[in-house]
């Protein structure tokens, strides 16, 4: 009797604390992470890597909105490390970027992170030192909201993707520097040439090859680093991670892409996925058949399997060089068919941006020879019209085709436009609308143009043509709302990640534009995002493809003004114990 009363009381206090009915009560949790050398077994190969608490991926850290967390991170490596809480809004000294937030965590040392949790949803964490993240140093974060989420689910699974490569990150970048196509085993061969000749004729094929050869670029250059094994929650396709369910249950799947380099097109044949959150923030639910999970992005979806059978979670890499596979099943050991990957995409001249200096020599006769039939209709005026601002005036008659064939987040005629394998609905950025906007909508105070630039052959990546080591920081003023204009002048897709502040992606939905932490910018496109500069300090801003970031597509952002400006001086030892 007494015991059960106590339990009720405990539950009562917890509930009260969770909903902050009694604001004086706050939850505080302490968590311990060790950074360790670990063995990673992908089912295809085993490699030495880095993990947390003895494993890669690391644990799922479960926080509660309103909680003050203390996380002790102990470095058991023989090199310096760091932990960055991806997508978390926190004081910059806690952001975990060596040389920007703090000096890093030296071997044998323990660094204590302390920060309040003022958000909820799906996030992740990873090392921001060297190539520790591609080498396995990542884990996930699940934050329970203060109030109920506006959707229902009975089961809740983290589904964390990565692209584990047999080579160490260091070696991968060195190889790419020696030969940019080192890992590209999808290049067009003599056989492809003859196949294209019989399909498109000799002169068209030759002029196509000449156009690409003239630029010294490859239409197959979609995945720089191939030869990886995709993992879901640390399990390769053969090892088959399985999440259990009872038919008719609603399952919340928290998709996280922790890959170094790889985008995944994710589907669950037989199930519709209702996207309820993007990058941790709830969105107005949208039901899709397939979605593209950009590097560092997260999407939460609800699925509801009605039958007593297994379903395959299938993530084909964007370049179709490998797939991730996991299973949802009523009982352990049940499996479903593994679908075929759809055809490998090829980049088109449209993805090349068309207005490059190198392109001057290209005339329209070579365009005709392009494999993609739709290229013929491309003219330069439509390219110019790509401005997302134009979305608002969009004619309603076009609306039906949205998301299927046309997606304004790919350039007109792009070879990368995704199609759902079952012919159904593929999620577009244009479908993402905030459930509850985080910020009042207002006019941006100024625009900053960031041209995403690079030299594929030298494997140099930069912003506005300048690598990180040569660049001045981007200076923002506390209290302003900055509009970033990303102009992708390269042929690669870049997931741009601003630390510490939300990036409100302009999908043309005004106040409903979704707040994200990672904005994927497809080749040849211009994408806008706005940021309310509401935290002081200095932050990292970079392409989240590990080797692009390391090769220079990175900036430091300094926020001037605001409270506690003095604290921008880096503490010598941080909160080191």
């Amino acid at each position, binding site marked *: 009797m007494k015991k059960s009363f106590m339990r009720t009381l405990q539950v009562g206090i917890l509930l009260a604390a969770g909903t902050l009915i009694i604001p004086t009560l706050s939850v505080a949790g302490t968590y311990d992470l060790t950074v360790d050398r670990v063995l990673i077994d992908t089912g295809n190969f085993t490699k030495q890597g880095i993990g947390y608490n003895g494993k890669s991926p690391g644990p799922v850290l479960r926080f509660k909105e309103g909680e003050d967390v203390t996380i002790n991170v102990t470095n058991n490596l023989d090199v310096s490390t760091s932990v960055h809480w991806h997508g978390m809004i926190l004081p910059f000294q806690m952001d975990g970027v*060596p*040389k*920007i937030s703090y000096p890093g965590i030296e071997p044998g040392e323990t660094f204590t992170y302390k920060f309040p949790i003022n958000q909820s949803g799906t996030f992740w964490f990873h090392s*921001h*030192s*060297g*190539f520790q993240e591609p080498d396995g140093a990542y884990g996930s974060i699940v934050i329970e909201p203060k109030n109920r989420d506006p959707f229902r689910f009975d089961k809740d699974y983290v589904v964390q993707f990565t692209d584990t490569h047999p*080579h160490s*990150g*260091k070696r991968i*970048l*060195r*190889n790419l*520097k*020696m*030969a940019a196509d*080192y890992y590209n*085993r*999808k*290049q*067009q*061969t*003599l*056989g492809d040439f003859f196949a294209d000749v019989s399909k498109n004729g000799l002169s068209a094929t030759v002029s196509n090859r*000449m156009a690409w*050869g*003239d630029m*010294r670029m490859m239409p197959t250059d979609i995945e720089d680093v191939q*030869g990886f094994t995709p993992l879901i929650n640390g399990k390769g396709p053969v090892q088959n991670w399985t999440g259990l369910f009872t038919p008719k249950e609603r399952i919340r799947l928290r998709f996280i892409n922790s890959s170094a380099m790889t985008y995944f097109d994710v589907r669950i044949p037989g199930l519709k996925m209702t996207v309820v959150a993007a990058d941790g923030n709830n969105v107005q639910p949208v039901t899709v058949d397939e979605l593209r999970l950009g590097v560092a992005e997260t999407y939460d979806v609800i699925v509801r399997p009605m039958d007593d059978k297994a379903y395959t979670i299938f993530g084909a890499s964007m370049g179709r060089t490998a797939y991730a596979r996991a299973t949802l099943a009523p009982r352990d050991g049940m499996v479903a068919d593994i679908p075929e990957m759809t055809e490998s995409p090829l980049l088109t001249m449209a993805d090349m941006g068309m207005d490059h200096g*190198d392109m001057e020599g290209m005339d329209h006769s070579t365009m005709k020879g392009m494999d993609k039939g739709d290229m013929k209709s491309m003219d330069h005026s439509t390219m110019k019209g790509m401005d997302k601002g134009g979305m608002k005036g969009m004619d309603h008659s076009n609306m039906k085709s949205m998301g299927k064939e046309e997606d304004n987040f790919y350039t007109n005629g792009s070879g990368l436009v995704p199609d759902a394998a079952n012919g159904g609905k593929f999620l577009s950025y244009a479908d993402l609308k905030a459930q509850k906007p985080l910020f009042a909508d207002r006019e941006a105070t100024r625009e900053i143009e960031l041209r995403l630039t690079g*030299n594929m*052959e*030298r494997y*140099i990546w930069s912003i506005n043509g300048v*690598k*990180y*080591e040569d660049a001045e920081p981007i200076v923002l003023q506390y209290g302003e709302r900055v509009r970033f204009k990303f102009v992708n002048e390269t042929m690669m897709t870049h997931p741009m990640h601003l630390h510490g502040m939300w990036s409100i992606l302009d999908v043309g939905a005004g106040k409903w534009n979704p707040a994200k932490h990672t904005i994927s910018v497809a080749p040849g496109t211009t994408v806008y995002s706005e940021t309310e500069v509401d935290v002081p300090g200095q932050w990292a801003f970079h392409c989240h493809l590990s080797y692009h*970031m*390391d*090769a220079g597509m990175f900036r430091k952002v300094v926020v001037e003004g605001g409270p506690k400006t003095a604290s921008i001086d880096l503490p010598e030892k941080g909160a080191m114990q």
Partner: protein
Amino acid sequence: MRLKLKTLYKATLALLALSPATGYAGDTANVYYGIKLEELEYRISDTGDDLFVWDGNGYVGTDELKLRWDGDAEYDLNAHEFGSLSNQLSLATPISDFWDIKGGVRYTSPEGPDRWYAAVGLYGLAPQWFEVDTNFYISEKGKASADLDVQYQVLLTNYLILTPSAKIDAAFSSDPEIGVGSGVNGVELGLRLSYDVLDRAISPYIGVVYERKFGQTANFLQSEGEDPAAWNFVIGTKLMF
């Protein structure tokens, strides 16, 4: 002279052995390194020669400045002597998206007299994927010469690769002491079929190479009783580390 060469070798090796750490370096430039041997092969010629041949390059440096080594050699397995042996050490820097210039010294030390050269060169990727490496030399004797090396890769599959190549040597004045006549004095055409067995690190190949000397250079050879033209069957491996 031999001693000096050894010192040079050692210096090069030391630089390469430094193998500086790359990785997220924050605000300092990353240093990279690599070695590429396009040819490391055994040659049997229709003129009865057995040769061991290499041709490659290596570098250590940043995107902006590299220390680069170029080297090639032909070792005669019957005569136990180097028919040719060349090492060049340069500083290289990009001048455009696809081209680097290099400047440095070259030292040739085959059987017979050695030569030092001042060397400037240009290497990179020409349109339509032709890999080009070309050099201009002035020897310690004041003689000018040049060479050009062009390569192309035909992908039969993504692993089975056919590589046609052409090398041309030219001299602007003759240096009889080392058997060089003026004009275009040598051409080497190769066709190698390789297979990538371990990434792109090890790619064994077989192939044919046609060598031909011209003009005075050919005359010098003939006077030594050698044939100015030869067909070779080659077997070897490409290396990239």
